[in-house]
């Protein structure tokens, strides 16, 4: 058995992912490219009995002149000094490149291809979307193309699987031959000045080709593998007055001039059809008035779907973990280990997994919209409005995803090339009400308005819910506007977005996408929520000195006096214990600060625990009000509804306090996992800390205002 590594490269929208899924099936995993947080999908396929290939799916890229972090990967991988030798020092060694081009837009997809050819890798040109080409009566003479470009050319369809077995055979042949089938078909003809510089760099660093040296020249400012000393050397050779941009344009023109005639020769295209099906759809969907209406209609449908479809599986998961906790509790002997397992570990796991249905459904619907090509239209429609708030049209994808979970939403911002706009999108996305806030809203909304209250036709609770979501959106836009005023950047911002032809989404692609995103959420968020649950359990179960024992004794005596039954007694003990615990102490410690918001120390505990993850709120409330950790929302609500202030005798959860608490949850950054992802994506704690501070300040001031006005 021989093992090989093959890179899959192509322009955005070339159907590369479908092809990748066809080649590798479910044998995929997602990692990171060396040193950067760009998703690297890899998958294994057996080409023959003896040949096993690891395919690496590179992000869609237009050329060796990248404009976003995702696009930089191709150049930084293949411009490595050791890229062409057989022993890569740090990078990965690739045995061949499968270049994927869309037949229906062959010409523009050949630019990157022609650049890659100059690096001398064994390459296979794959003409994708052969099924669409047939429908549109596009005919390619691939034999001529193969001869002209001097490499194997295969027509495939990533959608139908047509030509895949042929492609596998061709890849196997190329791998076995090991000939580098490099040639000078596309050699870039340098100008005198360019040649001097390229050769100087090539000699200085001992690089294999002039073109590779040229990539060092063009990208020496950021190529991650260059040392500071190397950068200085390159700068001294290139000099300030040399116009890199101009030579980039020259190179691009020269390449088009080279392959355009070839494409004209091999491609027969029926150009009579001008008004396609896709154009007809766009006439409605991107209409200046209808477009936005359709978009908001879709969003409402999506959120409806999430809340109506996810309920049942969520109840199942909840019940499952309840049963598991009980089962484990019954098997194990009483003691600390049992409590840790049932109240810490299992409860923590349940807290993570309960969100899978909502997140999976949201990603399913969003990736349907993305796969079909609709998202690009949404970006077109809202780019201008978004920019007023310091965002980019592409931010709309993140803001919509943020309705499920900020973590994958923040990861989706990598397609925004302008750093300032990307940063602002990352900073404000967590203000969009995510699914973790829902349980909190559900518990508290009842204390603000009664379930049977109506305002005209509208249920008041529904309106409050909608109001909270709107408040989150407004806060996100407002914060974006402020950041726009504060942050300064010289970097140009572009829209320049391809509006691909609508395609029926491939269910296989969509499901794989849902699977990956959900897995990311479970792992990324899970780690944190899991650890925090254990810490919380510890804080709520232990107390300084012997206060725990004292609290228990006190409660037992009190229970005897009041002649409570067993359950009531247990509840009283639990409640006294949490008051004595570390968590109780902390709650009382911060009480003076949160008093002006209408919160007591018990709510204080819930706020502290919620800073790990919002959804912990309900569980914490259940523990504090001693109704057992498997309490249903209903019993928590019932218990909270009767809670009175010991001194004044007033209800604790009056309208003012409850609304104040709701406002706090709308604005506050209560998710450690998101902070961790923000740190990872912005490469510093600075922005995570700023985000935490501004959101907490917003929450505090918002709640203060609401409570002081209402009480």
């Amino acid at each position, binding site marked *: 058995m021989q093992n090989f590594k093959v890179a899959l490269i192509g322009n955005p929208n070339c159907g590369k992912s479908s092809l990748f899924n066809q080649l590798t099936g479910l044998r995929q995993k997602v990692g990171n490219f060396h040193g950067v947080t760009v998703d690297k999908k890899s998958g294994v396929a057996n080409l023959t009995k003896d040949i096993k290939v690891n395919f690496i799916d590179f992000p869609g890229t*237009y050329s060796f002149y990248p404009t976003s972090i995702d696009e930089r990967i191709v150049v930084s991988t293949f411009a490595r000094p050791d890229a062409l030798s057989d022993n890569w020092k740090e990078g990965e060694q690739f045995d061949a490149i499968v270049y994927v081009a869309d037949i229906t837009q062959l010409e523009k997809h050949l630019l990157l291809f022609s650049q890659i050819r100059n690096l001398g890798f064994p390459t296979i040109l794959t003409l994708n979307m052969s099924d669409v080409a047939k429908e549109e009566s596009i005919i390619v003479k691939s034999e001529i193309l193969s001869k002209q470009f001097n490499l194997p050319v295969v027509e495939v369809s990533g959608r139908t699987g047509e030509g895949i077995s042929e492609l596998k055979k061709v890849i196997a042949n190329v791998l076995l031959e090991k000939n580098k089938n490099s040639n000078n078909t596309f050699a870039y003809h340098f100008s005198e000045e360019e040649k001097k510089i390229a050769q100087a760099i090539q000699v200085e660093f001992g690089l294999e080709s002039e073109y590779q040296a040229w990539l060092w020249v063009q990208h020496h400012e950021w190529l991650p593998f260059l040392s500071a000393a190397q950068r200085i050397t390159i700068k001294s050779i290139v000099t300030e007055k040399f116009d890199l941009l101009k030579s980039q344009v020259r190179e691009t023109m020269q390449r088009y001039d080279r392959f355009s005639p070839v494409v004209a020769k091999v491609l027969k295209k029926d150009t009579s059809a001008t008004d396609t099906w896709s154009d007809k759809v766009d006439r409605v969907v991107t209409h*200046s008035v209808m477009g936005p209406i359709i978009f908001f209609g879709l969003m409402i449908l999506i959120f409806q779907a999430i809340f109506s479809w996810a309920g049942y599986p969520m109840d199942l998961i909840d019940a499952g973990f309840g049963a598991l906790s009980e089962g484990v509790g019954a098997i194990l002997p009483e003691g600390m280990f049992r409590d840790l397992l049932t109240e810490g570990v299992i409860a923590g796991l349940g807290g993570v997994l309960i969100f899978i249905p909502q997140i999976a459904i949201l990603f399913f619907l969003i990736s349907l919209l993305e796969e079909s090509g609709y998202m690009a239209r949404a970006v077109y429609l809202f780019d201008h409005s978004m920019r007023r708030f310091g965002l980019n049209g592409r931010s709309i994808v993140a803001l919509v995803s943020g309705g499920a979970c900020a973590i994958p939403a923040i990861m989706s911002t990598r397609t925004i090339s302008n750093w300032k706009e990307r940063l602002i999108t990352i900073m404000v996305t967590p203000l969009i009400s995510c699914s973790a806030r829902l349980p909190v809203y559900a518990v508290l909304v009842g204390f603000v308005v009664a379930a049977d209250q109506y305002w005209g036709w509208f249920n008041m609770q529904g309106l409050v819910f909608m109001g909270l979501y709107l408040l989150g959106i407004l806060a996100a836009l407002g914060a974006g506007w402020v950041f726009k005023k504060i942050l300064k950047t010289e970097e*140009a911002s572009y829209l320049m977005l391809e509006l691909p032809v609508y395609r029926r989404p491939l269910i296989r692609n969509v499901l794989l996408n849902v699977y990956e995103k959900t897995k990311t959420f479970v792992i990324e968020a899970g780690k944190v929520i899991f650890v925090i649950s254990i810490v919380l359990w510890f804080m709520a179960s232990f107390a300084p000195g012997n206060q725990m024992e004292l609290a228990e004794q006190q409660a037992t005596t009190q229970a005897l006096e009041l002649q409570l039954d067993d359950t009531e007694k247990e509840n009283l003990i639990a409640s006294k214990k949490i008051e004595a615990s570390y968590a109780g102490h902390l709650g009382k410690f911060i009480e003076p600060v949160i008093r002006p918001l209408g919160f007591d120390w018990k709510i204080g505990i819930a706020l502290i625990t919620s800073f790990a993850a919002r959804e912990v709120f309900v569980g914490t409330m259940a523990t504090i009000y001693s109704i057992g950790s498997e309490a249903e929302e209903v019993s928590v609500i019932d218990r909270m509804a009767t809670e009175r202030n010991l001194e004044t005798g007033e209800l604790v959860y009056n309208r003012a306090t409850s609304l104040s608490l709701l406002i706090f949850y709308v604005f506050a950054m209560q998710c450690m996992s998101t902070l961790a992802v923000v740190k990872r994506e912005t490469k510093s704690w600075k922005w995570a800390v700023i985000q935490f501070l501004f959101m907490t300040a917003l929450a505090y001031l918002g709640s203060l205002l609401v409570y002081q006005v209402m009480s």
Partner: protein
Amino acid sequence: MRLSELKIGQKRAVESFEDSQMGGKLMTMGMIPGSLIELVRKTAAGKTFYIKVNGYGMALRLSEASKIFLKPS
């Protein structure tokens, strides 16, 4: 004329780009001098353009469109 002055439905070929950084990026996306541009529609505010470049859809900002020179017909 500039692309921003194009009327809906009108077609013209690209002549040059005022901003070469933007031009470089557009060229990698398939818009090169000589490419045929058609203005399909604009958003309500008129700030974003839906164009076709040699028949392929693309979205541009008004600011970007105003830096693209078109050949006189």
